[in-house]
């Protein structure tokens, strides 16, 4: 390169001026500062406060909380509400498995046979998100209610006994969870299956794999990252969910989210609520940590 020509060129001087000095070095920090501060003050700091609050002791009579550095609240709350934790774990796990089973074939179909209408089908998968979460759940309450048309029809046909009901049962809660979080499962599965190289599948058939083998030994292993992402994005929100249980469930199947919400907003027992939240977060962190170890944190970008 001829240096004398380049230094004569006005643009090269400009470029040098901008690419050197403090401005360039500080640029990444300046760009990330506003968002970073926002997340630090409103996401990280509150989580720390939550931890600290779980060490306080609150008086049930006055609602006043005093810092006592007592670790006793955590085991006490877990002891009191372990049943609700177990219920939440079971409901979330069942709903997640149902969602995986329901959405795998449709994700596979859209990825392999969607053709030019892929985007249309993806929007159809996302359709529940265009209606408010609360309204969706309320509509299911109406549909499943005792005088809703489904149960009325079934009773008229004598397919179910007269006292049969769905609302209030665990089935209703699990069905609500499965419906509300289905898109969170279907989309990551679609992304993972879409990426599978067809030639690998063709190679499997060339090597005399039958359909079952091709599925179990090619498609399923290659869509594993999507299954993990789907699990993370479905199980954790379902585990902490309380709207479905509050609207569709009954007194016998209270989930831990309801207890936490009541601790904070009804009983003003901040120490108790904070303790339960810390436990809930710890359980979620196990899943989050596993995902990060297996797939790396940046892969979540691809599944949203």
């Amino acid at each position, binding site marked *: 390169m001829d240096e004398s020509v380049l230094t004569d*060129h006005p*643009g*090269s001087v400009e*470029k040098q001026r*901008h690419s050197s000095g403090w401005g360039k070095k500080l640029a*990444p920090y300046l*760009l*990330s500062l*506003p*968002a*970073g501060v926002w*997340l630090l003050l*409103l*996401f990280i700091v*509150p989580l720390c*406060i*939550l931890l600290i609050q779980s060490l306080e002791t609150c008086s049930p009579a006055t609602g006043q909380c005093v810092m006592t550095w007592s670790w006793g609240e955590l085991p006490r709350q877990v002891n009191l509400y372990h049943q609700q934790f177990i219920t939440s774990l079971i409901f979330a796990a069942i709903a997640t498995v149902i969602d995986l089973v329901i959405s795998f*074939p449709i994700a596979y*179909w*859209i990825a392999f*046979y969607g053709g030019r209408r892929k*985007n*249309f089908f993806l929007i*159809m*998968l996302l*359709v*529940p*998100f265009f209606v*408010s*979460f*609360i*309204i969706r759940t*309320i509509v*299911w*309450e109406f*549909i499943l209610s005792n*005088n809703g048309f489904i149960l009325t029809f079934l009773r008229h046909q004598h397919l179910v006994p007269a006292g049969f009901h769905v609302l209030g049962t665990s089935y209703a809660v699990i069905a609500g969870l499965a*419906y509300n979080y*289905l898109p969170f499962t279907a989309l990551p599965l679609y992304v993972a299956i879409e990426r599978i190289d067809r*030639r690998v599948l*063709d190679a499997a*058939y*060339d*090597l005399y794999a039958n*359909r079952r083998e091709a599925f179990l030994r090619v498609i399923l292993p290659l869509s594993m990252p999507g299954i993990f992402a789907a699990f993370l994005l479905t199980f*954790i*929100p379902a585990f*902490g969910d*309380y*709207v479905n249980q509050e609207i569709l469930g009954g007194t016998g199947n209270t989930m831990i989210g309801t207890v*936490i*919400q009541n601790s*904070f907003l009804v009983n003003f027992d901040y120490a108790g609520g904070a303790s339960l*939240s810390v436990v809930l*977060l710890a359980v*979620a962190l196990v899943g*989050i940590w596993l*995902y990060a170890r297996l797939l790396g944190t940046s892969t*979540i*970008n691809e599944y949203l």
Partner: protein
Amino acid sequence: MSIETTPDVVAKTPRERSFGRRRKIGRFALPTYSWLVIAYLVFPIAIMIVYSFNRIIGGLQLVSFSWNGFTTLWYQQWSNVPGLTAAFWLSIRLALVSTVIATVLGTFLAIALVRYRSNKFRGKVAVEQILFLNIAAPEIVMGASLLGLFVTLNIGRGFVTLVLAHVMFSIAYVTVTVRARLAGFDRSLEEAAYDLGANPLATFRLVTLPLIMPGVLAGALMAFALSIDDFVTSNFVSGSSDPFPVWVYGATRVGIPPQVFVFGTFIFMVGIGFAFMSIVLSRK
């Protein structure tokens, strides 16, 4: 489907045989099943829209499951429930404000994450982990912890705390969305602008921003959708000013006025309209 040309053989290769079977499944069983799943996803929405046109007999104007005939009365009287209308406008204002803030902050952060490697941007890994944690953490924990913060600092709950919270949970989604679109960005275009004498601000405004605009808009839509639908966090930090989902949730205890379905239908139509518009635009 295959790239290489198959040599002339009389017998069918195993792939061809299985391909026939695969096509059969692709042609009939899978599409039928998939349309059934789509029908299941659409079903409650269809019910909501249909029952927003249901006549109501009796004194209390609350949604019931008996079909009493078609009426557009609730669309004419869409603003007749004072608390609901106020909650709806609050949600719109909240979504607009938090979307603007979250989109600006999230876009800047995405640019920093795409442009600079961790040797030039110390703390990049930590920022990425915080974003991941923010997306994956259970919402009830985030809501509860924000309540703890506001109570500890003695900050009165209302519109401001709602904006603070909504921006907080939107930033990560905006960053992730914008970042995905930035990945294929051609930086030589910016260098060309510098070479032609543009300053950094002019380069950003005239070159960078127009190029990343589709990603920024996608991020903004995401933030808007998240904000307008948020219940869990809002319920913790709203105080007495209820956004739309919080108001509807509160109303479930006494009964739902039919206008809720009217608003729901309206939000659905606008959302689906935007979604299909984005398909049409991306085809160009």
